[in-house]
């Protein structure tokens, strides 16, 4: 499954944004130089400059509103400021999928998504997969098939798998593996993860 590291919905990509900030480093040092300007020019047009911006998002169905810096990632905001610690910081570089969350239903790497881009949008983390105390079928399947060992990559796998199964109840051979190939499991439990996702697909199809 393709993962968008950031939404294309509004404004500029993270790369353009950083370029626009004048440095690769997300240092606060560059911000004061831009303060006082209302906007900067990027190749996609002029974008506004903020020191902080108020954002309102929905996390697992609950509204949250807070001031975020333009270079704060969605992952840091979820974990450090909203106390939503299901998504894990494993690589912090979009290389492992441990932080995967759903942004309006689409899996994204939260470590590569800026929090300001989540303004007005809906975020689902592993904490939001169970409904009314009932586990999502893929969560049940992970328990029954021993789909995890240390469990640290598991939230990312579960979110990816849940989104995949939402769009495909009848995965063909190889489709599950491809769908999950953006998530790393260092304990090396992949065959059991496949079994769990396949079991969940069968259950969801029957349901």
């Amino acid at each position, binding site marked *: 499954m393709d993962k968008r590291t950031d939404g294309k919905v509004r404004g500029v990509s993270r790369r353009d944004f950083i370029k626009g900030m004048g440095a690769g480093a997300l240092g606060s040092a560059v911000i004061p130089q831009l303060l006082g300007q209302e906007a900067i020019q990027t190749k996609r047009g002029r974008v506004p400059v903020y020191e902080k911006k108020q954002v309102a998002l929905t996390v697992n169905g609950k509204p949250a509103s807070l001031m975020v810096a333009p270079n704060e990632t969605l992952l*840091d905001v979820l*974990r450090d400021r909203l106390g939503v610690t299901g998504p894990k910081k494993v690589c912090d570089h979009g*290389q492992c999928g441990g932080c995967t969350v759903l942004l309006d239903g689409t899996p994204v790497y939260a470590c590569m998504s800026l929090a300001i881009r989540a303004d007005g949008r809906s975020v689902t*983390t592993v904490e939001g997969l169970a409904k009314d105390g009932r586990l999502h079928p893929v969560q049940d399947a992970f328990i029954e098939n021993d789909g995890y060992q*240390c*469990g*640290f990559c598991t939230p990312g796998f579960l979110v990816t798998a849940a989104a995949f199964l939402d769009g495909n109840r009848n995965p063909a051979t190889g489709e599950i593996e491809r769908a999950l190939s953006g998530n790393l499991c260092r304990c*090396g439990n992949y065959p059991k993860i496949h079994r769990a996702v396949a079991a969940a697909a069968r259950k969801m199809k029957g349901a």
Partner: protein
Amino acid sequence: MAGKKRADIGEGSLLYNDLARGGGDLYPPVRDQSQPPPESPGYTYIGKPTSRIDGREVVTGEALYTHDIKLRDMLIGKILRSPHACAEVVSIDLAPALAVPGVLAGLKLAEGKVRYAGEQVAAVAAVDARTADKALTRIKVDYKVVPFVVEWQKARQDGSPRVRDEKSNVEKFNEYARGDVDKGFAAADVVLERTFSTGVEIHHPTETHGSIAKWEEGRLIVHDSSQNVHGVRDGLARALKIPAADVTVITRYMGGGFGSKLGANDYTVAAARLAREARRPVKIVLSRKDNAMCVGFRPSTYQSYKAGVRKDGTLTALSVVNFSCGGVGYGDEIAEPVIDLYECPNCKVEEFSVFDNTCASRACRAPGHTQSMLGLEGMMDALAAAVGMDPLELRRKNYSTRNRGGTGIPYSTKGLDKCYDAGAKAVGWERRNAVPGAGIGRVRRGIGVSSSIWWGGGVPGTLADIVLYPDGSVEAVCGTQDIGTGTRTHMAVVAAETLGLEPKDITVRLGDTEYPWAPASGGSQTTPSVAPAVRDAALKALDRLKQIAAEKLQVRPEDVMMESRTFRSGPEPSKSIPFAEVYRALRREAVFHGERPGYPTDKFAFNTFGAHFAEVEVDLDTGKVRVLKYAAAHDSGQIINTRTAESQVIGAVTQGLSTAVFEERIMDSTTGNPVNPNLEDYKIATALDVPEIGVTFIPMTDPRLNNLGAKGLGEPPRIPSSAAVANAVFNAIGVHVGSIPMTPARVLAAIARREARS
């Protein structure tokens, strides 16, 4: 021959190899063992699949790992690390960092020389990560850069910069000899020499290393992502010069370690010192890059073998010289499998540690053995090809029932022969190329085998408690930790089995130094240490319950049977009393202490065994290796929970495959830094690279070892998994690549070597 890899920092701690062998001299061996034999295998849960009891917490994200813990008023600590591979630290000026608003403490950590890029120099604690990061940029460090070396081949040469000041970069750290290898070579029909090498593999647990330190009424409380809470406690006490009794270490959930989290770490000490200075809790979490540079790796090896064999397959002599590089720490010993695995009267091993300016190595899931198997089992396949023998037949021909290659004491149990049979059948061994490389076409297939030998008998002196409550609830308590292997669940399985309950009925407490002592979760020692201790405690608890039941029923305690949550008189089945009533009669909670005793290591060798079979295809044009099928068979004694045990094997195969084909740290000799300190350029196998893996457990128990007959399993399946893939590639293309990872370039070079020969 003691291993040099510490399971802990400071004096008086267990060396890794001592841990693996059952605790070294920590506990005297039992001379005249008089342990009860395992119960008849009429188990309800033991040896059967049980789902993890912490499943719901993990899949809902409720399980709190060290990364996830946030204490009130907690500060974030960050560490400034040396960019230089070797430098004198002339001065450190913290003042500008401390002047940053929100910075509450700072420490100078480097004294004198830093010897690898990434070594600690200074640390700060601030109100949040951004402020701490900003403060790090303000610290002024004056370095005097000195020459360094980050490649072991260069470090070996005369005139290379000395990593340890006056000491040489090459140090002999292990040797062994029996018989006379020269006589053995003279008696051989075929003598072969081969060299095998393995690259640096990094543990890269998904949860990077991290700790939270908090002082409370003079006591230190630490949350640590650790494989060894008691060892961390002792190490912190020594480093901070405070009584161990005043330190508590907690690891409730942890995201993998693979040997890199066995001791107290320097950043944990820094967190404790920062917390003391700031009078607030401090959390330090390492970055992924730090994990690649600062917390160890599996040492590289360069193994030169010479082996002699008769035409009938009898080994006459086996010798190896190993150069292993462990950075500023020691390399890995590869000796044990070479010495032990095959019957061979003449054997000689010489091992040298090479030092370079990379961080100190750490134990990495079966240290030394994974590398050893690549060489030893590669050699066996070369010998088999040279005498025209089936590689499995050659292994059976030299099968040994005593350690030290048939010259030592007998193995208490050894199911390796059964592993060969089961694995060969599962993979379809008869489909291999009878002559390596005999296939045709651009894409060649091959099947390879490798054996496994490890210790894993358990550490005597391990303690566990069972607590019975009058309301009928039951606790199993042990100061071990669940590093992902399913320790929580197997404690519940053993307690439930013994007490006639279900695993979900047991409340398991672990991961805390306030609980009874257990060893590090390393050396494949957790299950054979903890499970017997829990069993012992539960048996004592059961005795007490039966005693109460006997009094209530007015029968003899030995006549009391347990069945469907009821105690019943055997001779008079009509006399029965439900569990609930008996528990109620306890009137207060009752604690029962269990201990895992010693075992007769003077009379028997206690080892775990396994055999792995891989089928691969190799593209001769691209050099790409793909693993198609895999079968693993193990003798780890009585398996406690087959569901989690199967996962252990599957994970170890994945890791071995990954190391065989992808993983290697690459150092830049110009900057002295790694070029791939992340999870993209350091390649790790993904879902697309791993085939279905068939797992067989040989039904065996070892009654001499413990009250369950259980041996360890964490490392045994990691030992043969790179070697089996390498031997399969040999079978496919007719030449052993000789080096792992078998990158396309190395595979193509091997093919070119073969073509040049023919």
